[in-house]
């Protein structure tokens, strides 16, 4: 049996030989992966479509469809498209995109060059979080771009831009506005980036991991890509695993792998597992361990993969306090532009805090539910919707704990140190 790097069922794919702390050089990358055959633009789009690749930034939108929308606008409004690599991973419990940029930047840049060719772009902008969290990724990508310029021109110019390390920065319209010299906050749409983006050109904004998959799909073909994963969610995926788990970090798994295998079953079921990060949903521990990490399986548990952030809450943590902290964080990450988001999230966070502190009345949970329903869908971006998704699953999965806090005040576990990270990303991968 073939067990070389091209064996379709072998894992890891993206993280093959991405060991240790180092960055794979261009020479190492080419030796491992081989040269990219130059493909015709149409063939690139078709291969991505046949592979069934969906965006790995959270929304799971089919990548080929997004490319076609850019291509359609190119002919409609004119103007050469621009490709933006979305590395603005502001989610505190996700580090997989930075991990790719730090370890295998050439795989990401290959993917960017390919989609640029596919949509007819000559300019690629790679965005990376600023500050300490993004520094290693910035350096690795910067060096990789220099290496490529010297040895094998891509046909597109590539620049690296650092963007604010905030939760909302990765929202496409925020990223586009930042690259146009404005603040990194969402804009009212339309126009959407594929209609009018950076420099008013049709702009393809694509997630880092998505592009790394593109680099392998074009090398090995759609059938190779589909040899792993489920029909609806083909391929491998990167999960950032943290919290009460045996092995925190970034793991590449076959999509559809049961969460139990990812979290490690030795320590028993966690109280609950948050799937999809802080815009995601809680699944109670025993159900989660049996559920596959793919959108069809997770739908039965009211969750979705999102950007692949998985956080286990241990039995010794207080779910109500943890939820209140995260809601406070999300309220603080509102960009302050839309009334329902600003006031609604602040009110929700304060009420959740009051429940945790034992100072809320018995209607507090109903009030949270009503406010959540009120603000969903009413921001310029999906920030309130994501926060409400997190809130509703919290109220569902931790119903007994919320009720207990409303009736009896703080529990013993409320005094435990906080376990869900908020703010700058902890050293998950270091």
């Amino acid at each position, binding site marked *: 049996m073939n067990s070389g790097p091209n064996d379709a069922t072998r894992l890891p794919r993206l993280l093959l030989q991405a060991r240790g702390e180092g960055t794979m050089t261009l020479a190492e990358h080419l030796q491992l992966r081989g040269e990219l055959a130059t493909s015709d633009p149409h063939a690139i789009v078709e291969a991505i479509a046949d592979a069934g690749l969906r965006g790995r930034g959270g929304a799971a939108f089919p990548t080929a469809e997004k490319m076609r929308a850019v291509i359609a606008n190119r002919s409609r409004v004119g103007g050469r498209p621009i490709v933006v690599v979305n590395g603005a991973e502001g989610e505190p419990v996700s580090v997989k995109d930075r991990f790719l940029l730090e370890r295998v930047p050439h795989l990401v840049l290959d993917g960017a060059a390919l989609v640029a060719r596919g949509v007819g772009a000559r300019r690629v902008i790679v965005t990376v979080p600023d500050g300490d969290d993004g520094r290693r990724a910035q350096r690795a990508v910067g060096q990789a771009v220099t290496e490529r310029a010297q040895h094998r021109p891509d046909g597109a110019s590539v620049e690296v831009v650092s963007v604010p390390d905030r939760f909302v920065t990765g929202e496409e319209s925020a990223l586009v506005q930042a690259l146009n010299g404005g603040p990194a906050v969402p804009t009212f749409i*339309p126009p959407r980036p594929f209609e009018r983006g950076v420099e008013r050109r049709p702009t393809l904004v694509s997630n880092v991991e998505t592009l790394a998959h593109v680099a392998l799909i074009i090398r090995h073909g759609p059938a190779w890509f589909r040899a792993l994963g489920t029909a609806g969610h083909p391929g491998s995926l990167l999960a950032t695993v943290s919290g009460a788990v045996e092995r925190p970090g970034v793991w590449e798994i076959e999509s559809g792998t049961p969460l139990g295998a990812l979290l490690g079953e030795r320590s028993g079921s966690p109280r609950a597992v948050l799937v999809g990060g802080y815009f995601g949903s809680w699944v109670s521990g025993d159900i989660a361990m049996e559920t596959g990490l793919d959108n069809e399986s997770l739908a039965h548990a009211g969750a979705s993969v999102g950007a692949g952030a998985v956080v286990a809450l241990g039995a010794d943590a207080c779910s109500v306090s943890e939820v209140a902290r995260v809601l406070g964080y999300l309220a603080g990450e509102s960009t302050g*532009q*839309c*009334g*329902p988001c600003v006031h*609604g999230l602040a009110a929700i966070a304060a009420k959740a805090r009051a429940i945790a502190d034992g100072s809320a009345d018995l209607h507090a949970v109903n009030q949270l539910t009503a406010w959540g329903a*009120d*603000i969903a869908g*009413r921001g*310029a971006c999906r920030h309130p919707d994501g926060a409400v998704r997190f809130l509703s699953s919290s109220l569902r999965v931790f119903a007994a704990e919320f009720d207990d806090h409303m009736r009896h005040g703080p529990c013993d576990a409320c005094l435990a140190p906080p376990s869900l990270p908020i703010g700058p990303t902890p050293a998950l991968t270091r």
Partner: protein
Amino acid sequence: MSVHIRVNPITCEAHGLCAELLPERIHLDDWGYPIVDGRPVPRELMAHARRAAEACPTLALLLEREPR
């Protein structure tokens, strides 16, 4: 042709005139911002809808042909 009401939440400043002028389709949340009924505006309400959109001091109330 069906017309739908949409609010630009970035420019909306909770003046609340729209809810007064078009209570059949708009009510205010706990902070004074409009919650809009997403169904198409029937012909008999069109004049009111147009007046509500024109009365908004920040022109945040939009009448659109397609639902978004």
